[in-house]
């Protein structure tokens, strides 16, 4: 009967996650759930995220209690059809726990590869290369001040049957801090060179914020490389930009001053964790990081406005394109998605801020999967 029993285990959201806390169960024991339904909230040091059921069935047991912290791969609960006996479920749990305590945790931690450093002329880029298969690859481009961990809740989900690549832009994360002139077109040339280096001739481009402007520059200059565009809260479609965020992000060097700046990023302010703030402070301490951000800000947002109007690029892009935006974005206005050609799909997500790929990961992943498949 064990093939009718599905273990629900602690997921791994992103590379750094080793354990998570059950912030709350969304459904009581004994309830039927559908595959993909959010059954619990999992809190990590970085973010709290809904956990989608891996299968449909009846939630027969909640092993983990609310507030409990468990390692990645630990048993949280058990799904099975009502026909499965309690005795079988008990036996399954006992066997799982015995296997898990004898090293199961160690294996689940190594199933995601570490990011690697890729040399590109004078630049070194940190690259997270995942997935394999015959599907057209996906490349993820993050925004101003971000890094590849911005895709921690998306990349794995989208890596089924295809290769996916997330990377740190120059000046960000673990990549070289030399940003050149800091213009989107320059970053687009770097992204194109990275794709060449990785032997990817054509990719679906998923891009966020300033990364959206970079994706549009990529589509303009290297249209043959871009299979489709999925732009999440992209720059380049309007003039407005929250300069309190840009300037605050550059100048704040302490938790207390940075936290209110990061609050602009999300609808649910409790998502900004201590760890997220600390990671950004640590990034900004790296030699050259703040200077790089200043150069980018001066090039992309001179006089407090966006410098590049890339609407014509999007309008004339020959491939499929979609725009996803949080309705409560406080950094770039979702109004910028208005007036685009009808062929471009626009999805406005309620109760989401500037980072819907983290805040509404399930919705964004669903939109991306449907669009890219």
């Amino acid at each position: 009967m064990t093939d009718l029993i599905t273990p629900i285990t602690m997921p791994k959201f992103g590379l750094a996650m080793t354990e998570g806390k059950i912030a709350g169960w969304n459904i009581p024991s004994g309830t039927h759930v559908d595959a993909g339904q959010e059954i619990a909230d999992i809190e990590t040091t970085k973010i709290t995220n809904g956990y989608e059921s891996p299968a449909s069935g009846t939630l027969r047991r909640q092993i983990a209690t609310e507030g409990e912290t468990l390692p990645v791969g630990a048993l949280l609960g058990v799904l099975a059809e009502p026909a499965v006996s309690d005795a079988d479920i008990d036996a399954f749990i006992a066997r799982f726990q015995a296997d898990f305590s004898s090293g199961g945790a160690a294996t689940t931690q190594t199933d995601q590869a570490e990011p690697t450093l890729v040399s590109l002329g004078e630049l070194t880029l940190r690259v997270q290369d995942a997935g394999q298969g015959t599907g057209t690859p996906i490349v993820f481009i993050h925004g101003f001040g971000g890094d590849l961990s911005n895709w921690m809740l998306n990349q794995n989900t989208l890596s089924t049957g295809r290769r996916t690549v997330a990377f740190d832009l120059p000046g960000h994360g673990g990549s070289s801090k030399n940003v050149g002139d800091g213009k989107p077109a320059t970053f687009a040339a770097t992204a194109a060179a990275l794709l060449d280096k990785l032997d990817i001739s054509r990719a679906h481009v998923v891009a966020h914020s300033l990364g959206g402007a970079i994706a549009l520059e990529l589509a303009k200059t290297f249209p043959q490389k871009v299979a489709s565009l999925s732009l999440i809260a992209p720059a380049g479609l309007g003039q407005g930009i929250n300069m309190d965020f840009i300037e605050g992000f550059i100048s704040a060097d302490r938790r207390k001053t940075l936290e209110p700046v990061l609050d602009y990023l999300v609808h649910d302010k409790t998502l900004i964790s201590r760890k997220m703030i600390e990671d950004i402070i640590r990034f900004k301490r790296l030699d050259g990081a703040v200077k790089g951000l200043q150069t980018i800000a001066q090039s992309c947002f001179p006089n407090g406005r966006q410098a590049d109007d890339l609407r014509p690029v999007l309008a004339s892009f020959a491939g499929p394109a979609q725009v996803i935006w949080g309705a409560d974005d406080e950094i770039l206005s979702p109004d910028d998605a208005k007036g685009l050609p009808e062929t471009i799909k626009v999805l406005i997500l309620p109760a989401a801020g500037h980072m819907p790929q983290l805040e509404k990961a399930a919705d964004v992943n669903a939109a991306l999967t449907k669009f890219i498949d």
Partner: protein
Amino acid sequence: MSKKSFRQAINEALRQEMLRDPRVVLIGEDIAGGQGGTSGVVDAWGGVLGVTKGLYTEFGPDRVFDTPISEASYIGAAVGAAATGLRPVAELMFVDFVGCCLDQIMNQAAKFRYMFGGKARTPLVIRAMYGAGFNAAAQHSQALYPLFTHIPGLKVVIPSSPYEAKGLLIEAIRDDDPVIFLENKVMYDDEEEVPDEPYAIPFGEANLTREGDDVTIVAFGRMVNFANEAADRLEKDGISCTVVDPRTTSPLDSATILECVEDTGRLVIVDESSPRCNMATDVAALVAEDAFDALKAPIRRVGPPHTPVPFATVLEKLYLPDAARIESAVRSVMAYKKTKQEA
């Protein structure tokens, strides 16, 4: 980014600053080791606990000076070199040896900027090991940071982890004033994630390693780890603590300490230096003077007895503060509140 030990983090900071700036030189006893002997090995020791290993081989005798056993002469030479344009990092080995060269530090390096009307700069770093718990006996185990903190004109840094050590040492080397950089010798094998790239952590900015509502624990150097351990245990019993790592005792981030005490109303200070006129008394005075109204309980200090550091292992263990003693101090200030309210 990879896991690095406290020792590796310090070595990497020295190496990266030496690569960046040719004025950065190292000077000290045994920092290469083996020179002048017959073994032919020029970099045998790399410092008494191996911190500078490899740097002599990489940078050569023009950048790494292995000196005779005379603190007075090589610390004096480092002070002079700093005053005339180099950026020396001198290694005093055990901080307990400062008695042999205190004039060079206290009356020379610390006074130049002031006495030359702001025209002199002394970009000098003196690294030294401190702390008990290594079975090194009374002359090699002291935590003398209060001594340096007492002297205006010196900056005093006590890193609490490998990440902190690298960033604070880079800041120390780039600073234009004399900096005393104290490394707890028991921590050299502690490991954590440390960026490969150079980065600097500013002085005078405390780091909150835990944030809570009930008690503020201010701890220095290695004691920060014990304070974190105590805070995590107490959290399970519903007592939440803020742990403040001031990082530098001079300058001291008094604003952050006061803010934390205003928030929690209770203060425990953990300091492994001798208890009279140490950082615990200094922080207690600060809070008593400027945050008296916020206090819900008396300030508690956790520290060693006022004795030399004992050599015997059992006595040395008894001498040093640990997580259990911090935990019990926190419980006592929490209990104080209860009796007051019930009364």
